[in-house]
């Protein structure tokens, strides 16, 4: 199976073709095609994971595509523990989410198109995961970006959705551009685009010193954009305008994690940079994002946005883990996070499906009406906040241990982040599920899935994936040790931390829960009092650290001045020249048009007259 791994992405691609061209006419509007494709791909991914894990199968399928000058352009696919794990994860999560979407998207006018986009995304993501070179990686990278754009703006009739799609696309584009420059630097100096070729080039000293660091950081810039790290994090919360399965699949489990995967895939670039500067950049960006994301989550009322901030923060943890030499810890967190965050998003989707709003303050008391959703959601939350024995505890703890060994400041940041994570997730849980239903009695549209004044449990096509994901969430954590031996990078194995560390992080998480409990259900401190007391902090957080405003001022303000100047230049200098030429031509034509008799005989006569004259002149000279 392993040598045929390159076939896996073709399943969803075939599904795209089928649904795009036949979707509306297929039974069930084509959803089953998409599901069948991704389930097949997922099973194949699991099979490959099994082969790689048990038999140690590897594959590096290369193909010489073209020769640029004297540089062969070798492309291909790679199967190793890293990509096998990602394949299996993407396959499983995407299968569950696709099945879930059948329930969530029911009745949507563009139902087949949604599944076509979803399959296209799955194709791109699997393609990206299997890439063994920067060219394919970049292609997959752009394709997932495109699918993200299409799916965020899936309900493009809503202006915020359209705007969010554009914002996501343009913001990630900044990162992609930086990544392209980095790739080009590597290509220039090593003459190859394949990962192994570049690693060998670095070891051979073809690219060294600050340039290597710069190039590595530029490549990391792509990851920053795609994984919504500071300072390119602004698009992710807005991206929640997309349908919730999309948020779960793209903006929690897979695409945003592609940045982490990129860093893991190209880990030698970072670890070989002089003084591991590039790695430090990764670690600090991750740490800062982990903290900022968590803090912003505390004041957010939109349930999906809370989860988005949480995603951002958790991605920060992953980068931090990679940055502090916790290679397998970071990757393990990626996998566990993919499952429990997909679970959380799908749970949120189930809630939104039931109450038809995103506002947590309009929910409440849903634990009784939606028991399955509640319990699975709770499992996910506990995993996210790092409560043992749920999977999040193991992975996050491993990252913190690695950070402790490498960089105490980052460890502190991470621990504080863990506290805040517990705080905002506790807030979410109590707002949503506890107390009584605060939803307005006025019923939105009575027909359609997103309606009904009375919250109700979602159909089983939605709850079954939740249960499966919850099972994975519980069970995955115990795989920490085998995972660490399976996916590892020689030279990035942190020493075991002191025993108290684990206890401390559990305590911190529990403290976060306790603080949330103190504020929300028990009302020991009223939230509004807190808000007044820390008004400045609240302002900063609500405005998302003013990133959007700064960007608006800098890029829109300065940009519009630039545009004005360029416009004036274009209008008066460039157009002026063109108009002058046109005017001149016009006048000349006005005079010369009498030469154009429009008669073939005249023209031909002149042609042959000219021929005679030319030949005669040639003969005489």
């Amino acid at each position, binding site marked *: 199976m392993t040598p045929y791994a390159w076939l896996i992405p073709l399943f969803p691609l075939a599904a795209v073709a089928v649904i795009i061209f036949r979707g509306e006419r297929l039974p069930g509007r084509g959803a089953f095609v998409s599901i069948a494709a991704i389930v097949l791909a997922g099973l194949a991914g699991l099979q490959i994971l099994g082969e790689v894990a048990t038999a140690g199968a590897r594959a590096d399928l290369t193909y010489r595509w073209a020769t640029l000058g004297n540089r062969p352009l070798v492309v291909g696919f790679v199967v190793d523990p890293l990509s096998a794990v990602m394949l299996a994860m993407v396959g499983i999560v995407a299968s569950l989410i696709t099945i879930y979407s059948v329930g969530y998207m029911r009745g949507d006018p563009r139902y087949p198109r949604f599944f076509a986009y979803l399959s296209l995304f799955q194709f791109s993501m699997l393609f990206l995961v299997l890439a063994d070179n920067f060219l394919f990686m970049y292609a997959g990278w752009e394709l997932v970006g495109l699918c993200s754009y299409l799916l965020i703006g899936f309900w493009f009739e809503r202006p915020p959705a359209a705007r969010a799609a554009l914002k996501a696309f343009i913001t990630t584009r900044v990162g992609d551009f930086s990544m392209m420059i980095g790739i080009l630097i590597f290509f220039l100096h090593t003459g190859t685009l394949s990962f192994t070729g570049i690693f060998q080039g670095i070891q051979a000293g073809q690219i060294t010193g600050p340039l290597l660091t710069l190039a590595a950081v530029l490549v990391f810039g792509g990851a920053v954009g795609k994984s919504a790290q500071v300072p390119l994090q602004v698009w992710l919360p807005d991206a929640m305008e997309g349908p919730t399965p999309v948020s779960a699949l793209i903006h929690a489990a897979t695409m945003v994690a592609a940045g982490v995967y990129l860093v893991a895939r190209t880990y030698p670039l970072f670890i070989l940079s002089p003084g591991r500067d590039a790695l430090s950049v990764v670690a600090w960006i991750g740490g800062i994002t982990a903290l900022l994301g968590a803090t912003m989550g505390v004041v957010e009322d939109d349930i999906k946005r809370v989860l988005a901030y949480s995603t951002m923060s958790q991605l920060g943890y992953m980068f931090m883990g990679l940055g502090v030499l916790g290679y397998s810890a970071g990757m393990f967190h990626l996998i566990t996070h993919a499952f429990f965050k997909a679970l959380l998003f799908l749970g949120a989707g189930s809630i939104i499906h039931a109450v038809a709003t995103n506002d947590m303050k309009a929910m409440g008391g849903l634990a009784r009406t939606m028991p399955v959703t509640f319990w699975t959601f709770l499992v996910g939350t506990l995993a996210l906040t790092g409560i043992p024995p749920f999977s999040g505890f193991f992975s996050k703890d491993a990252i913190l241990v690695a950070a402790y060994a490498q960089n105490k400041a980052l460890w502190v940041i991470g621990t504080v982040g863990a506290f805040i994570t517990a705080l905002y997730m506790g807030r979410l849980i109590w707002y949503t599920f506890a107390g009584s239903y605060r939803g307005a009695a006025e019923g939105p549209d009575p027909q359609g899935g997103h309606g009904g004044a009375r919250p109700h449990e979602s159909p089983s096509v939605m709850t079954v994936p939740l249960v499966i994901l919850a099972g994975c969430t519980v069970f995955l954590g115990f795989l920490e040790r085998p995972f660490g031996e399976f996916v590892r990078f020689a030279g990035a194995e942190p020493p075991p931390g002191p025993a108290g560390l684990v206890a401390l992080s559990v305590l911190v998480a529990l403290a976060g829960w306790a603080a949330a409990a103190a504020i929300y259900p028990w009302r020991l401190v009223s939230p509004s009092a807190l808000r007044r007391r820390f008004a400045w902090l609240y302002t900063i957080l609500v405005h998302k650290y003013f990133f959007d405003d700064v960007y608006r001022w800098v890029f829109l303000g300065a940009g519009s001045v630039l545009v004005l100047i360029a416009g004036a230049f274009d209008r008066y200098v460039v157009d002026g020249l063109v108009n002058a030429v046109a005017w001149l031509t016009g006048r000349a034509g006005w005079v010369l048009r*009498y030469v*154009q008799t429009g008669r073939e005989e005249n023209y031909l006569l002149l042609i042959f007259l000219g021929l005679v004259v030319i030949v005669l002149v040639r003969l005489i000279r």
Partner: protein
Amino acid sequence: MITLTHYLVLSALIFVLGLFAVLTRRNGVAILMGIELMLNAANINLVAFNKFVAPGAMQGQVFALIVITLAACEAAVGLALVLAAYRGLETIYLDEINLMKW
């Protein structure tokens, strides 16, 4: 002994006859006839060169055949144009077709 030059001179004369027709006739059909004569002259050249300069080759005759085919195309399209002009403008005299002049 008839040499290549004989054929070339003959073809030049036929070509010039065609050219004269194209240059001086008013009737569109007559101009097409002149073009056919010019194409025939070119064909004589092709076949004659094939025989005298490259006796082993086929290309001269092959391209003469292609020119004949294209001449048929040209005649069909040209005559269709003449018909269309006659239907629309009621003349096939090219100096009277001057709707787009100036």
